[in-house]
């Protein structure tokens, strides 16, 4: 029981990170119908940006307060990653919107290969261990031979994720930008006719996706304490699985899917085999796409001829 509770906490934390990345996939798919294969690598890039800014603040500028440094890191990583994804969309995807259906996907695969190799070149291909910080751990239950713990980092991850999701909900539901996004999602041509700037809306969608992925990157760096240029691929596939599981195009679905994937992975690793934990995620992906392509909260995809 204690182990179950502990894995539940761990799984939800991991799932929160996957959920943040999954939103980037689901929003882009919703608005322009494209699987942005490079999104996982944008997430990886943001974790490196975060690490370097953190080192810059604490080592070179001599900032002593870790919480303040982390806040600056979060904001800076979000801004810079947003700019990266803005430029990626401009250079690699924008011209392909009118091309054949698989062109943007292939271009994003190329972008994914480019990003992971670029970071490996710029920062070296090996694991980088992040200095340990915020190591406080709270014990929830004691005795029974196994203590259920909740770490400060886990609380932080849940709190940051929740507040970002609230912000996202506000942007999508209550602002003109969100209204434009929902209009583009329904019918791009009609939205353009009614005066919605489609290009700008698509750009904004990519930036929002990257900002959330950057938050996930900072939290990931904090939680695991290790970053690697190859992290983007697996994390990206898992987050994509989350987006599909929740119903691609649906924002609550992405979060729900993320939490489910986090739980599946954690419980699989705890109770079956950690060697095959990636197989669990890939298996869920294949089974969902084959048997439940609409996902849990997705809408029916009506095909018009």
């Amino acid at each position, binding site marked *: 029981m204690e182990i179950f509770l502990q894995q539940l906490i761990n799984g939800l934390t991991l799932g929160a990170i996957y959920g943040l990345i999954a939103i980037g996939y689901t929003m882009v798919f919703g608005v322009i119908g*494209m*699987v942005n294969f490079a999104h996982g690598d944008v997430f990886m*890039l943001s974790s*490196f*940006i975060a*690490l*370097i800014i953190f*080192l*810059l603040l604490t*080592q*070179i500028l001599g900032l002593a307060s870790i919480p303040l440094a982390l806040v600056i890191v979060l904001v*800076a990583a979000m801004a*810079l990653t947003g*700019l990266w994804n803005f*430029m990626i969309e401009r*250079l*690699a995807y924008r011209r*392909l919107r009118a*091309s*054949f*259906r*698989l*062109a943007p*996907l*292939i*271009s994003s*695969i*190329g*972008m*994914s*290969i*480019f*990003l992971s*190799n670029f*970071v*490996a*070149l*710029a*920062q*070296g291909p*090996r694991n*980088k*261990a*992040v*200095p340990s910080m915020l190591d406080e751990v709270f014990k929830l239950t004691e005795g029974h031979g196994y203590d259920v713990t909740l770490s400060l980092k886990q609380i932080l991850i849940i709190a940051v994720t929740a507040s970002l999701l609230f912000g996202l909900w506000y942007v999508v539901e209550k602002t003109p930008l969100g209204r434009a996004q929902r209009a583009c999602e329904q019918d791009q041509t009609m939205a353009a006719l009614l005066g919605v700037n489609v290009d700008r809306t698509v750009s904004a969608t990519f930036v929002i996706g990257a900002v959330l992925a950057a938050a996930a990157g900072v939290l990931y760096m904090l939680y695991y304490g290790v970053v690697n240029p190859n992290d983007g*691929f697996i994390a990206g*596939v898992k987050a994509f699985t989350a987006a*599909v599981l929740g119903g691609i195009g649906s924002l609550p679905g992405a979060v729900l899917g993320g939490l489910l994937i986090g739980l599946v992975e954690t419980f699989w690793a705890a109770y079956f085999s950690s*060697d*095959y934990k990636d*197989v669990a995620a*890939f*298996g869920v*992906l*294949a089974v969902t*796409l*084959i048997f439940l*392509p609409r996902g849990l909260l997705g809408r029916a995809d009506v*095909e018009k*001829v």
Partner: protein
Amino acid sequence: MRTEGFLSKVKSAGLAALIMAALSFPIVAYHADMDLTRGLFLESRWPLVAILVGGTFILRLLSEFVFAWMRGRPAAATRKTKQGISPRAFHLIGFAGIGALIAFPLAAVFMLGPAGSLKWIDNYGIQILIYVMLGWGLNIVVGLAGLLDLGYVAFYAVGAYAYALLATDLGWSFWLCLPICGAIAALFGLALGFPVLRLRGDYLAIVTLAFGEITRIVAVNWTALTNGDAGISLLPKITFFGIPFSKGAEGFASHFRLPFFPIERTIFLYYLILALALLTNFLTLRLRRLPLGRVWEALREDEIACRSLGIDTVAAKLSAFAIGALIAGIAGAFFAVRQGFVSPSSFGFIESATILSIVVLGGAGSQAGNVLAAILIIGGSEFLRELDVLQEFFGYTFDPTQYRMLLVGLAMVAMMNWRPRGLVATRRPSIFLKKAKPVAVELIAEGRG
């Protein structure tokens, strides 16, 4: 007026340089290095950032001027639509190419001697031809049937492991294993193709990617069968239909009264993969003329129309998967016998992406384009290895091979934006009324399905 135009160009170039500076600020400007205690420290690289920013500024300014100049010229649309090369010339080029490929190892040995030519035949010749064959195999799935397969390397792995296991555990000869490996891979193709029948486009791509990764993870973790990360080594070497390439009296050289050179085995491997690749090509060209091949191409253009016309799309898709997998399995068996060992690290996603980029850069559906793209990508990355002279300029930490995949990624993006139909971008219709006319790229509209 002119100065205003100039100012706006400088402004635009300045903006580009500013964005470059922001993009490269943390990730290029500082290198997080590890010291002996595994602690991280930063090392600044501002000159590199200055080069990038300055380069961006100059390039952007130049491109602004080039664009302005191009706008001043008569519109490009008035030029005649390009005609493809005539079928006759195409055939001639094809035969000349095959002749050159057959002559290549002999010419290399003749010019560089048995020792000097090994690198050229093995690293360039055989390596490129393996990828040409894989590219042609994947071309059936992606280029003809229009099914984007991101896990193609799984079938390659199945073929390689099948040979490794049959040869080491059962002691079967390579010539017996070759068709069996192909058949096993084809069965895998059917097995993996069956569940994904209902999926199309991007979803299909992602599921095949998942299958490819699952195959690799199983190869890593099922140690009882595959020996895990260490792989299976000491595979039996290739024989000349039973005659080993060894020095003794039983060997190939003494059997045919030739002087013995170790390179004879390599040359034989070269001709073997050349024959296998040409067989693949021949198969593809013939398949395109069969009703099956026409169904594939119809499927690629519009699946809904196919179903409306009563075409059996299930059989078409499964056969495309199975034949593509068959070719990958045979290539995998060849890879295993050439390498002498197999391990999961040879079969990662990056291999699938490389093969896919060959098909994409070559122009999906084009046989000649694949060869060109394979020479560029595989030959190019081998060539990068030769560039270690550049270390004298950039210091000893500079490794040109690291740039290989970076450039492949960039090339894929550039290709999609610049020529989404690939290097050789004409399509000759496989069915026509009176005379086959090459169809220019601009005229091809693909069903968005």
